[in-house]
């Protein structure tokens, strides 16, 4: 049978522990609840609600990454963190780039009413 774990690397390191999963669930429930409250009540200043929701969502993704996917600071995790950083870079480029380009395209396009007037 092949040896799966290196000496000194406990099995629990990759699979986490009961306490860490339960803590992750508690944090995730708390953040999800906060998101629903923020979006449904006037607790936050109305124009700040989208920013608040995005902050809560990023926090919850961090909780999932650390407590469920075990992306942490351990020596075996350096490659995972670097890959994650690259993935985040690509996601940010795709999403923000699309929004940026499409907003400018919209601004440069004639509105439908302007086209109608030209056809007359």
């Amino acid at each position, binding site marked *: *049978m*092949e*040896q*799966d*774990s*290196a*000496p*000194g*690397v406990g*099995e*629990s390191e*990759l*699979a*986490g*522990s*009961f306490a860490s*999963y*339960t803590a*992750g*669930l508690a944090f*995730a*429930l708390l953040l*999800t609840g906060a*998101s*629903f409250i923020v*979006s*449904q009540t006037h607790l936050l200043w109305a124009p700040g*609600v*989208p920013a608040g*929701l*995005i902050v*809560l*969502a990023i926090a*919850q*993704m961090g909780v*999932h*990454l650390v407590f*469920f*996917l075990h*992306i942490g600071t351990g*020596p*075996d995790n*350096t*490659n*995972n963190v670097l*890959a*994650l950083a*690259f*993935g985040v870079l*690509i*996601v940010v480029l*795709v*999403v923000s*780039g*699309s*929004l940026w380009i*499409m907003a400018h395209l919209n601004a440069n396009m004639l509105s439908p009413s302007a086209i109608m007037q030209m056809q007359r």
Partner: protein
Amino acid sequence: MSAHAGIAGPAPVRIVVAYGFWIFLLSDIILFSALFATYAVLSGQTAGGPSGRELFELRHVGVETLCLLFSSYTCGLGVLAIERRRLQGFYLSFALTFVLGAAFLGLELSEFVGLIARGAGPSRSAFLSAFFSLVGLHGAHVSAGLVWMSFMVAQTAVRGPRDFVRRRLLCFSLFWHALDIIWVALLTLVYLLGAR
């Protein structure tokens, strides 16, 4: 490479497998980011049809979120149980994971059917096309996850908690947790911001 890894020798198979699967998951997240970008661009283009504010029922979405969150938790517990060779705990956790995942999928399908019945199907407007492809892709991933989960439970039953079976279960749990991360983004950007 840190000095620690140099002393320990080559990385164990389990860590290499998890790393490779993590790269696959990141590529999957990039696939989703393209659809998120599409949705963000098209979310206002309702073509005179219903907008998210009129369509989304947050109570329904909240139950879906709870199903997925608890299924992620039970999936993690199942992997812990198999690492400690506790087969019964593993089967119980994965049965719960499957039921919660199937419940999520059922709720999502009922939402889709309700929307189509109200005339708000994917062909109604660019907003709804983007909505159905984004949320539907996540649903397709959950369906694939349910199939994979069934195979892994069968394989565990036949082959026992061997090294390669536990590695595959670890990969499955990473997949299932990653779907939960994508759902967090979906919940916030599509539902909570769209229902305002």
